[in-house]
């Protein structure tokens, strides 16, 4: 722990990159994921089950594979090479969006599907716009939605394969907690790797405690 405190500037920069990139990815990924999940709940179109299985499968794709595909796309020789995004934070954000989307869609779908069908009708009956009614659905399913957000955030902030591949682990620029851990391990500096790992552990603990607290309050409401 003293090591953690003594690592000062560079450490906070690394943690900052992790949070900035992952929060940005969440910010961008959540609205479309919510819409897709909503459409999957509301609309029965042919092939819906196929789409859901497909998204479930995407959830299991290793992060390095996503990283590799993105690398090929963004590479100088790749179709999007002109964007000059490779080894930048935006590239990491894109990778994490791709990683977060399937898990968000699957978990948000489960959460929204758990809400009584009458909720949507009732909101529309009371004059709510579709957007307001959708927001109400999210609020009705808020514990499931929070769980989805926490799970997705946990996945992308803890992943290393994609961040390493498209971010490049450039110090002070695209080096985040996980790629820094990989580097410290490579260097044989286990102690620093463990210190950074503890940051992730503390983060996971905080997120889960928060979720537990929310859940607890939810149960109280139901019991009352």
């Amino acid at each position: 722990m003293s090591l953690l405190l003594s690592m000062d500037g560079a450490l906070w920069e690394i943690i900052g990159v992790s949070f900035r990139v992952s929060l940005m990815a969440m910010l961008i990924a959540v609205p479309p994921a919510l819409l897709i999940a909503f459409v999957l709940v509301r609309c029965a179109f042919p092939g819906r089950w196929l789409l859901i299985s497909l998204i479930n499968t995407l959830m299991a794709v290793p992060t390095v594979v996503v990283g590799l595909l993105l690398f090929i796309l963004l590479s100088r020789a790749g179709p999007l090479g002109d964007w000059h995004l490779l080894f930048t934070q935006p590239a990491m954000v894109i990778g994490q969006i791709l990683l977060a989307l399937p898990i968000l869609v699957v978990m948000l779908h489960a959460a929204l599907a758990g809400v009584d069908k009458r909720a949507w009708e009732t909101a529309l009956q009371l004059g709510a716009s579709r957007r307001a009614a959708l927001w109400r659905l999210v609020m009705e399913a808020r514990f499931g939605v929070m769980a989805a957000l926490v799970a997705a955030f946990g996945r992308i902030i803890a992943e290393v394969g994609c961040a390493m591949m498209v971010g490049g682990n450039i110090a002070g620029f695209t080096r985040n907690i996980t790629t820094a851990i990989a580097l410290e391990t490579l260097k044989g500096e286990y102690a620093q790797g463990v210190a950074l790992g503890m940051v992730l552990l503390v983060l996971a603990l905080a997120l889960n405690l928060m979720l537990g607290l929310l859940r607890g309050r939810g149960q109280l409401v139901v019991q009352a």
Partner: protein
Amino acid sequence: MFPPSSSSSSVPPGDPSCPVTGTGFAQASPSAAQVLAADASVAPLLRVRGLEYRLPAAAQASGESAEAQGRLLWHVAALDWAPTPASGWVHLKGDNGSGKTTLLRVLAGMQPATGGKLEWQTRDAHPVRYLHQQPYLFDTSVAGNLVLAARWQPDSGSAGQQRDQVEEMLRWSGLSDQARQPARSLSGGERARLALARAWLSRPPVLLLDEPAANLDQAAVEQLALRLEQMCQQGCAVILSSHQDNALSQGSSARWTLSAASLHTEPSAG
């Protein structure tokens, strides 16, 4: 004594016994006058022509084209309904499975009919409120449910006006003391009152209730009837369904019966 206020196609639209008084009602729109050019002085609130609902066709052998359309649930040849504030509500009766809920949902615009025409002759873009058999209460406080309704109503006023509306409806439903409680902690009768207040908050011209008396005890039904009477007097046109007579049948001005896949209308004996 309730004057008959409903009219079926057998009764001419101009029947003097069902005048539109206009007080508290959304006025008939100009287009309605055109539709009923024969007598411009009276326009029904609801105009139905040839409305029908067929159940989705089950997977079956093609070739029998009549069968492929699906079974006819009900058919409404023609209906002009012009309720008055004094007339009380319409009691929609029918056996289980006769299609009462579907008819109400079609009238509320929540699901399309499979054929025919349906018109609400009112300026209100969103005139009808429908209450489920077991109304859905949002997972928030009692007051929170009303706040949502106040925020969502078509012409929502300032925050202050909305707050006044919410407080008024809390008093009206007798739930002022429970305002901060979770809505889902209420008893059955309280839930019914809250759902009614939530629907009535924006003073819609039409309210449709699906089996409101089901799952309620006698006292709760009477509480509900009291409030429905007030609403009718203030100009709300109400249709409620039930498969049997109960305390709510008493105050009805007319009885519509779904049987043998068609709707029969008659003034209430009430």
